[in-house]
């Protein structure tokens, strides 16, 4: 299978800040590819470069076989781009926005109706409402509709679910799965780790660098240490108690419990329980768990500065 998108050594500076620093990856045709990263990781800059809106200072990117620098016009007609910020016309109605984007791409809503029908039926009851008055979830659906209306081969979705309620997020990802089945390649960024597992492959972006790139299960395999979930009635005190424990590698609150890794290869559970008891925490339950994507992400970020320091 050929690649829908290839980048080599992308570097982008804004003043002295390096928003992207040597990003190289490729997305296969028909893939649902996730870019995971915190705010300021460089996700939006990456998307803007791929959408031909920004030129990289170094490196190159090829989208659908076209160079983003030389053949940007060809790319623009073939790509559906959804910026991170809601960027539709707030004073136009739902139907007017959709019509407008269909017309400027030289098509019509009718011609693409089969593609957007599933989303459009949800928007239909509000079709005369101004886009600015829609709820967060509805806005994102409309933006997706507008990005799809010219039947793009590749969707570039920059944080489409940020600020959207949980139910709408689920629906949104179900739609993405459907478009992937129709053969549309999708590159999507998100700060939510739970969404990452829904991607075919994903990449971690941190401070302009790619830390890891693999399938969701491949990513979690990067997590080598045994991971434990520790819970007790007084959960809020566990983290501080564990951080003063001499064998602790990491301890952070995660959902209902505290995720813990040990510096030793085989931790001594009894010693751990005894330490917590000495800190006045009783009724401790320790279970070994499979690391999730977020655990992997956190451990990768923690390793990163340590790796950097020797180089200065």
């Amino acid at each position, binding site marked *: 299978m050929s690649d829908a998108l290839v980048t080599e050594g992308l570097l982008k500076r804004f003043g002295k800040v390096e928003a992207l620093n040597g990003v190289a990856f490729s997305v296969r045709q028909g893939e649902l590819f996730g870019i995971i990263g915190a705010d300021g990781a460089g996700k939006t800059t990456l998307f803007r470069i791929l959408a031909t809106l920004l030129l990289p200072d170094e490196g190159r990117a090829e989208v659908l076989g076209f160079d983003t620098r030389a053949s940007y016009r060809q790319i623009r007609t073939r790509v559906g781009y959804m*910026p991170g910020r809601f*960027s*539709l*016309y707030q004073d136009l109605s739902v139907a007017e926005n959709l019509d*407008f984007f269909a*017309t400027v*791409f030289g098509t019509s809503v009718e011609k693409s109706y089969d593609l957007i029908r599933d989303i459009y039926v949800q928007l239909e009851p509000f079709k005369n409402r101004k886009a600015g008055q829609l709820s967060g979830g509805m806005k994102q659906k409309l933006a997706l509709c507008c990005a799809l209306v010219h039947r793009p081969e590749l969707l570039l979705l920059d944080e489409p679910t940020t600020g959207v309620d949980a139910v709408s997020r689920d629906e949104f990802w179900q739609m993405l799965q459907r478009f992937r089945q129709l053969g549309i390649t999708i590159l999507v960024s998100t700060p939510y780790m739970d969404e990452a597992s829904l991607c075919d492959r994903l990449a971690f972006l941190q401070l302009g660098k790619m830390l890891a790139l693999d399938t969701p299960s491949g990513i979690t395999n990067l997590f080598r240490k045994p991971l434990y979930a520790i819970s007790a009635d007084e959960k809020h005190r566990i983290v501080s108690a564990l951080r003063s424990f001499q064998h602790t590698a990491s301890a952070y609150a995660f959902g209902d419990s505290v995720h813990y890794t040990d510096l030793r290869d085989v931790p001594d559970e009894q010693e751990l329980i005894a330490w917590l008891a000495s800190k006045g925490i009783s009724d401790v339950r320790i279970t070994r768990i499979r690391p999730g994507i977020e655990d992997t992400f956190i451990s990768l970020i923690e390793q990163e500065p340590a790796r950097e320091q020797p180089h200065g």
Partner: protein
Amino acid sequence: MRRFLGFVRKEFFHIIRDRRTAAILFAMPILQLLLFGYAIRNEVTEVRTGILDLSHDVVTQELTDKLLASGTFIPSAILSSEQQIADAFASGRVNVVVVFGPRFAERMLHDQKAELQVVTDGSDPNVSRIVTGYAASVAGDYLRDKGYPSPGIVPLPVMMFNPGLKSVYLFVPGLMALLLMLVSAMMTSISITREKESGTMELLLVSSLRPIQVIVGKVVPYLTLSFINVITVVLMAMFIFGVPCRGSIVLLLLESLLFILTALSLGILISTITSSQQVAMMISLAGLLLPTVLLSGFIFPVTSMPWPLQLISNIIPARWYLVLVRGIMLKGAGLAELWKETLVLIAMTVLFMTVSVRKFSERLQ
């Protein structure tokens, strides 16, 4: 073409949806014209007049009658001594006191020189100057009618006794220039920078609309809007204030279209070098509106400016447009007399447009 029309339609939606702005844009020409036409006029009517006649002869009697008959001077006090003048002013009974010196007719005959004093309220210099001019003018007329040689009072020929019309004559062309600058340049620059601010410019760029399509698409709606304003102003000036259009009205409208284009291209130029609505507005106001009011000859004649300002006024489009409108409406001039100004505006428009299209970035900065 269909893409382009879709874009233009969207622009019209923006204008219509923003009801407040739309209302201002359409109501502004009407309000401003009424304001300039009625309130801000240089003519003075119904001047409360006091007469102090120290001579009481035939000439002073006839002159008094003549003054009061003009309609400008309303008799409100007959004074008998100079001491009463200050009181009359202080109490607000009079705006002007006309004083005939003693032995007026006699001195007129023998010395061919008599004293007619026009005492006005110096705290309102504008009114003072005009009232003095009127009085002198009336006196001059009278003396000429009576066949007195070389009268002692020099009449001011500028006063034509048609209050209410003359200032509108002067204001209408300037007002048109001002309105077109405001609507065309400011509104387009704001509307483009708004797209930059709201992020919709990102989507417009990736939509593969050509820069020229976006720019022309922004121009067309405001061109229409401004043209409606021109027609409103011209019609009001002609039918409400009776300003004549002595030249070709078609030429006037064509020249106005040209000026609108100049202003629009300036607006687009502003928007290509700024990224926020506020900055665009500040530049439009400070960089376009003020020079249009102050340096175009709208209020202060260009010829009476110091030479550096005269030089600057050359690059202000409104200056040339003013010459065109005054030429066509008031002097009945045609293209034969006005081709130079027309060419200047065309050249400016082409220059601004070219720079705008060149500078319009197809990427984000």
